[in-house]
Structures are given as C-alpha cells and as structure tokens.
C-alpha cells in the first residue's frame, strides 16, 4: 500500500507560468527518450481508436484542458510486478524481464506558455502536462518539445510469481 499522504490535493497546479516546479515528476518512457513527441488517442479520451495519433492527423484533433501527457509523482510500480536487482533480473525468463525507463522534468525552468502541470490524483500519484486552453495536438506537441526532460533511472522489474 502506498503512502499517499505526500500527494497534494487533486487539482493542485504543480507548474505554471507563475508557479515554479518544486518536485520531481516522472514519466515511463523509452530507453532513449521520454516519449513526449506523440499523444495517444487514449490521452484525448478517444475510445474507438487505439495507438498513437498519426503525425498527419495532429491538426485534426484537439487537446482540451485536463488532457495531455501522463506523469507520476513517484516511480510507481504496477501491481503484479516487483523491482529486482540486476543479478535476479538476469536469471528470470528473458520474456518476463521488463524495464521501466524513468524520465523527469528538469526543475528551475519556466514552463512554455499555454502549458500547465496539474495533479489530478486519478490514479493516485498521477498528474497531467496539459493545456491552459484548447489547441490542436500539433501545437501542444510543439510546446511540449520545449520542456526539458532528463533520465531519472531505470527500474528492472519482473513478475512477482
């Protein structure tokens, strides 16, 4: 059970033009990048299409306040998985070896105008890098490209059983 006492009240603005980012926020990305150059349909609450929104459709879809890129206040490990040391991890079935590559937003930088980071707490620990006003996906991604991300470590995980 996670201690959620350190989490702010849902709705708290963590980063905005007039609010400095004062805590780490984490995103599960790829080994080489934080995966913030795309949005998925699910990020826009679209349920009849799956996967990433194609680049050539990025002007067709709109990002509304509350929608955007998922981050977490902690390095969250899903239930059913456990963090392993490198030796244990190497000894499990290769198909069950998983890595979570964590990326974070660097502090002491201004947020690009038009963006805000809000703690929504659904699920616990979750926050969203979102827009202050509705805009096309392409415009949103151009602003997100200005946000400085850097690596925050790798968790080697595998199934509990």
């Amino acid at each position, binding site marked *: 059970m996670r201690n959620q006492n350190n989490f702010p009240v849902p709705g708290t603005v963590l980063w905005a033009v007039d609010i400095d980012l004062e805590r780490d926020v984490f995103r*599960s*990305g*790829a*080994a080489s990048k934080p*995966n913030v150059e795309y949005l*998925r349909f*699910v990020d826009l609450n679209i349920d009849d299409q799956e996967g990433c929104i194609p680049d050539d459709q990025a002007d067709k879809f709109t990002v509304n306040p509350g929608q955007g890129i*998922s981050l*977490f206040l902690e390095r*969250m490990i*899903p*239930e*059913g*998985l456990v963090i392993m040391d490198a030796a244990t991890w190497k000894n499990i079935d290769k*198909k069950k*070896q*998983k*890595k*979570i*590559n964590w990326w974070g937003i660097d502090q002491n930088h201004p947020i690009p105008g038009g963006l805000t980071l809000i703690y929504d707490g*659904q*699920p*616990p*620990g*979750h926050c969203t890098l979102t827009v202050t006003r509705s805009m096309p996906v392409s415009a949103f991604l151009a602003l997100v490209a200005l946000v400085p991300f850097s690596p925050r470590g790798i968790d080697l*995980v595998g*199934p509990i059983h």
Partner: protein
Amino acid sequence: MKSLDFTDKELTYLLISLRKYEEKLLTDESEDMEDTTTDLLFIQSLISKLKAAKSSQ
C-alpha cells in the same frame, strides 16, 4: 461527469474485462514498458474502484 449505476452482474463483467486487459499488459513481452506502465496503473486503479463499489452494494 455523470455518475452511473451498475448491477452486480454488470460490475462483474467490467471487472472480468479489465482483468483480461491487465493480464494482457502484464504478459506483454516487450522489455521496455514505456506507456504500458501508465496503462497498468490506470487499469489497476479502476479495478480497485470497481471492486470497492461492488463490495459496497
């Protein structure tokens, strides 16, 4: 957002489908989890909420 009413049986179907989705994500053979981490955290939180709703009915 509207609140919805579900019967026990409807909640059971929802839980079954979410557990199947969870299992699919947990057994994905990609080494780097990437977006799967976020998906699992959402699905598992939803399962917890639905279980709590079901047990309170």
